[in-house]
């Protein structure tokens, strides 16, 4: 469990990126921060591994204040994946994955062996092991980034818009893969995005942020969708513009679901159930 207690971050230039932010991030679930550009998502995420230190307030991991933990060691125990993967371009894929174990003094052969296994875990062909990152596609690079994040078998995985720069098709694959990984490995995933669809898809807990890291709403996707806390949230998730309010329309080629703008959203399958067949209150999966 990660807990923020009225954390504020003011950058040296005076920008108050995060103000009085408090939140509990549950273990072994995926928590997604979503918000517009500059609202403080990255700042919040980076405070967890002390890339950024709060100006005031405290952050605890499983009850221990991280202010007292030496940053380099802390970072080595937390996985971190960012947009554009942040791989070291001068190291081969396998060495990139083994970066942190090697820093920690694991023997080279062992670290490489482990890295190859991780490639399987994230669904990367081992044939890529000896390539350089620039020789991979964007999606493959992201997988390497995830593998690197997992290399020290961390409890916590921080992900900062990891899929922001990949093709939509690949992006869907990566999202599915992440859901599978999170479920299988039971990591605490903290994920940042500004795509509300992605947030709803991945998050057990979704945190909608406004400028300054102010929380507009926290909840499961279902809770937020059904009861947007205010106008901002409604606009943000598109409910206001009718984007989420669908109705059925018949077309010559079949019947489809259309939103208030007349934008087709899909087709309706299955009967209207009397009550939810799955428990969706704790998470939608």
């Amino acid at each position, binding site marked *: 469990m990660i807990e923020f207690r009225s954390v504020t971050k003011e950058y040296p230039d005076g920008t108050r990126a995060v103000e009085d932010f408090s939140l509990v991030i549950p273990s072994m679930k995926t928590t997604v921060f979503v918000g517009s*550009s500059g609202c403080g998502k*990255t700042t919040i995420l980076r405070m967890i591994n002390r890339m950024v230190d709060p100006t005031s307030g405290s952050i605890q991991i499983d009850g221990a204040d991280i202010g007292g933990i030496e940053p380099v060691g802390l970072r080595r125990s937390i996985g971190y994946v960012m*947009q554009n993967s942040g791989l070291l371009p001068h190291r081969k894929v396998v060495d990139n994955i083994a970066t942190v174990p090697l820093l920690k003094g694991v023997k080279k052969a062992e670290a490489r062996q482990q890295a190859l296994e991780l490639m399987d875990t994230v669904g990367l062909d081992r044939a890529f092991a000896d390539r350089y990152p620039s020789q991979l596609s*964007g999606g493959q690079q992201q997988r390497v980034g995830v593998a690197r994040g997992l290399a020290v078998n961390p409890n916590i995985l921080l992900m900062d*818009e990891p899929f*922001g*720069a990949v093709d*939509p098709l690949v992006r869907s694959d990566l999202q599915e893969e992440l859901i599978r990984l999170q479920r299988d490995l039971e990591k605490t995933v903290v994920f940042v995005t500004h795509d509300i669809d992605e947030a709803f898809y991945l998050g057990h807990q979704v945190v909608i942020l406004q400028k300054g890291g102010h929380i507009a709403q926290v909840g499961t996707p279902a809770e937020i969708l059904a009861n947007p806390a205010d106008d901002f949230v409604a606009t943000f998730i598109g409910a206001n513009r009718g984007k989420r309010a669908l109705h059925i329309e018949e077309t010559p080629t079949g019947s489809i679901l259309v939103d208030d703008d007349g934008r087709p959203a899909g087709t309706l399958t299955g009967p209207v159930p009397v009550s939810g067949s799955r428990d969706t209150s704790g998470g939608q999966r």
Partner: protein
Amino acid sequence: MNFFSQAFAFLLAPSNWASTAINPIGTRLVEHLWYTLIALVITAVIAIPIGFAIGHSGRGRGLAVALSGGARALPTLGVISLLALLIGLGLRAPIVALVILAIPSVLAGAYTGFDAVDRRTIDAARAVGMTEWQIVTQVEIPLGLPLLIGGLRAGALQIVATATLAAYVGEGGLGTFIFLGIGNNDFVTALAGSILIIVLAIVLEILFSLLQRLVVPAGVRAGRAKNDRPGATRTRAAVGSPLQEGSK
């Protein structure tokens, strides 16, 4: 006695500036500046159009880089000696040597200036219907100017420093004091000449850097501060290749 104070005394003595002096400092200074100017103008006339052509078309860059590298390696002393032997005394030899010396910098300034212009900006200019000439004059030149000035600045510095060698073949300039000092075992004169040249070079450097700052297009300057935040991980232009150069 300190050589520097003697040298400054030499430079400040009015008698050394008087036109009756053997080597009036003012005259030598003007000669030096004059050679610098001539060489720089010739260099610019040769190198800038070629640089623009390379920058705009994207062709011939490999050749230009190779030739510039070679030219940069050319020892000016050798070139001046050779040219003086071949074409005799007079300004021609040193000026040609200075021009050869400065061409690589100015050429590079010209074409890298064009390179510096965002491909997408040029592409868009073409797409809205600018002719190639309009692209060169209205987009590439104004946006490439700072680097061109940078190239001219580097070239001017090399010229002003090396114009010293004009005295080697009898054409005066501030090098006179240096060769006179060396030949006469008179360190003060040599030092005085050196100080003058160094000051001249530094003044030129400052003037050019001011000019360079002045010619940065206002819009480019205005926006620069924005993207300066270290560690900014702004969303990269989501997906999609930046437009490749299309055919024209």
